[in-house]
């Protein structure tokens, strides 16, 4: 049973990795977007760090959504922990 599960896991991983192995990395013809960012980011945004320019300027809306995800996760932890805390005290008092 365990061997069958391992075989299924290996087959699934191979299925995932096989199409990726056909992609060639480092081909300059496919690097239009990266080329644009590297050449034009300091002029477009005034930011010397290209990563910062992409993260907060070109894709600012994306980063704002990321912040909202973080906010929602923090709120979820806060509410779950508060409920667990109150449940604990209620059980202790009874």
């Amino acid at each position: 049973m365990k061997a069958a599960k391992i075989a299924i896991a290996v087959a699934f991983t191979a299925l995932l990795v096989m199409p990726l192995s056909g992609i060639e990395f480092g081909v300059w013809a496919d690097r239009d977007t990266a080329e644009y960012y590297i050449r034009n980011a300091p002029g477009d945004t005034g930011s010397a760090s290209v990563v910062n320019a992409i993260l907060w300027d070109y894709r600012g809306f994306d980063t704002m959504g990321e912040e909202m995800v973080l906010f929602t996760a923090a709120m979820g932890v806060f509410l779950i922990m508060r409920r667990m805390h109150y449940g604990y005290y209620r059980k202790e008092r009874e």
Partner: protein
Amino acid sequence: MDTIVKSVSRILFPLMLVTGLYLVFHAHLSPGGAFPGGAMIATAFGMLVISYTEQDVEHRLTRSELIDIKSVAGIILVILIIRMGYMMREWFLSSQTLFSLWSGGFTPLTNIAGSLMIVTALIMVIYSMVRG
């Protein structure tokens, strides 16, 4: 906790704060950014929570203050990115020189607001995990 842990964390706390603030304020010039800088500042507070008690830290920085900071930072972030960023882009870029501290368009301001969001979120998670 032990006295050694308390003393070392008391010495390390301002250094971690300064390093995190450096990462946030120089995010448009050097590696770093709002996410790692905010995580480092929140880690400093988490270290204080572990070495001292949670009540001692929360006495100085309460949860309602954290929620206030978080709301203000979120509103600033939304306004900066949605409204002011694209409207005042030319004014920002014309008043700035590349490689100086005041550069990067409106990204330094959004970096600061975003790091405030991350700091408050992580400190709230630490508080609520330690004590309900």
